[in-house]
């Protein structure tokens, strides 16, 4: 049996191990969110707002995600709507508001416990398109820096990793660091069955996770 951590818990866990995640605040009510945002100057508009909970794994498919919110008034409306969309089966829920991360390229990174080979680490092209594109590289955790660099080299869509539409090239060392961080998370938490960083947006050359989902054994 397994369960998933909420997005906020997942973000904190991956962040503790060194993965860059977009700045965020959480709160159970609209007022709490607006207060938190006021208090934390690092979270800046435009923002994204989501309804999170351990029972909610795939927010976008249920419309529990609002993007590109530019001011407090619009944020208030979005938060009210998201709270109203919660269903009893969702259990405890909270709002998560994060700075929007600008970048036209999305990657996916994660951990997965394979029945035959044990814990594996993955890098892929795609974000929401990842399962259609299937440009992925796996390795068995833990990995060395050389392994991590080769994972990046393995991706077929190398052009997406260079300079692209006015954006700088991916800083490959930063991506290596993300993969190493995931492996150290896996080693420190044997109860972890899977991790998704999806998408991992390449923002100004740096990979930043704007969503995280950690699945743990119960």
């Amino acid at each position, binding site marked *: 049996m397994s369960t998933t951590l909420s997005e906020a818990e997942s973000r904190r866990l991956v962040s503790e191990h060194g993965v860059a995640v977009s700045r965020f605040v959480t709160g159970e009510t609209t007022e709490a969110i607006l207060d938190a945002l006021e208090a934390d100057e690092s979270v800046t508009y435009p923002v994204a707002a989501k309804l999170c909970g351990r029972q909610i794994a795939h927010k976008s498919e249920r419309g529990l995600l609002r993007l590109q919110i530019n001011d407090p008034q619009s944020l208030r409306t979005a938060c009210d709507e998201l709270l109203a969309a919660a269903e009893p089966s969702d259990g405890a829920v909270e709002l998560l508001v994060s700075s929007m991360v600008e970048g036209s390229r999305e990657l996916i990174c994660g951990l997965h416990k394979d029945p*035959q080979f044990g814990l*594996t680490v*993955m890098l892929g092209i795609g974000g929401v398109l990842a399962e259609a594109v299937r440009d992925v590289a*796996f390795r068995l955790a833990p990995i060395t820096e050389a392994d991590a660099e*080769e994972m990046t080299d393995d991706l077929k869509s190398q052009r997406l990793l260079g300079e692209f539409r006015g954006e700088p090239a991916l800083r490959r060392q930063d991506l290596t660091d993300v993969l190493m961080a995931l492996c150290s998370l896996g080693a420190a938490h044997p109860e972890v*069955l*899977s991790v998704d960083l999806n998408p991992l947006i390449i923002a100004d050359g740096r990979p930043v996770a704007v969503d995280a989902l950690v699945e743990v054994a119960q």
Partner: protein
Amino acid sequence: MTRRPTSSRPTRDLSALFDPRGVIVTGVSSHPGKFGFVCLHNLLAAGYRGEIFPVGREPGEVLGREVLGSIDEVPAGRADMVFVCTPPSLNEDLLRAAAAKGVRAAFIAAAGYREAGPDGIDAERSLVAAADELGIVLAGPNGQGVVSTPSSMCAQIVAPYAPAGNIAVVSQSGNFVSSLLNMAHLSGVGISRAVSAGNAAQLGVADYLEWFAQDPETAVSLVYMESVDDGRVMFERLRAVSSAKPIVLVKGGASTAGAQAAASHTGALATDDAVFDGMCRQAGVIRARDPEEAFEAAASLATQPLPSGNRVVVVTTVGGWGVAAVDAMAGTLLDPIPLPEDLRTEIDKLLPPRWSRGNPIDMAGGETRDTVPEILEMVAGHSEVDAVLFLGLGIQSNVAAMMRGGPFFPDHSLRRIVDFHETQDTRYAQAATAVAERTSTPVLVATELANTRPDTPGPATMRAAGQMCHASAGRAVRSLDLMVRHARWRSARGI
């Protein structure tokens, strides 16, 4: 998952299996369709260097050899290996009798074990327990045999034997051993050892690979694998072996298994093949798409130096082949570099101005007697070139063949020109090998004549020298790509 310490595990000594002083063959009868007969026949036909002790129920001679009534009649200390073709119910006692005579290895060709259901599983378990207790290394059961060219040994219930060379084969499918040995015959690139792992009851793929890694007769291992028992341990062992010697691997059943139902996107992307492929890359295992590609990669690794980078120059006698070779490099690690300026200047001195003056080096028919060997040497020896692809071997003998078979031969000076053409191709083939050796730069050779007219002097010279002649530029490119990937894996780890 039980994790065995991989660093402290001693490599199993398989010398009694691959280089036995003598072999006992059980189940020998006069019926030429029976396994015992076939194995005896193949041992004799390949000229096995050790002693052979046929054992069977019928007294008398088979293939001119006296058949002993039981293993008890075998003189002690003269046989290291027993080849078992008798049914499961007899074989445990037989192992004990063989061990008493000094036997340390068994190849069990007999079927009726794990593959045959619950009784077979029990029989297999107790057979392995007996072997372990007796200190016998046990190959099979349900395998097709073992080949070892340093001992001229063909202990198989199938064919063929193989030319001698440096490729060691282990396969979870016996038929693929035969396929790969047939490819060795076609190419002339030979085999050191080959074994069909059968049910791999005691000795598994990794046990063989670890022994091959220490075997001075082996330069590269070639594996056909369908299943992995303990993935993590297999990974650690493959990685350790790869650091010593290259492993080329083909996985059967690669495309059938999908991803497990998963809560995560990562899990949904984790197909068995994606994870297996990543494991291979991490372990430095050279994964080929099919047995043909695997054999050619292994043959190239066994006969060529490892490239130190990915900069490739193509040398060809005519244009189209070079273009196709460069096309085949798209999507690979290989870089068909612009021809270095100093090379261009040097080649200008050797060829009339119509040559391509770039990479591919298309001689455009301007070559004279020594041009091809000179250009190969010059290119392979250049510090900015990591590998050379030579196309066009055999074109002159092709012309010669038509003249030789035509109505005017040997008059009208035809004998002289035919001899010249054929000598030239022989020289080119020899030059490609010699240049690779002298410059430590791989020189891969490709011509479709390797398949279409293998007995013409170009391909025939390569084959006789045990050198790989690829049947197309695309296939040579694929081998070179796999070699470059492996070279990178090694250098990234300081090996």
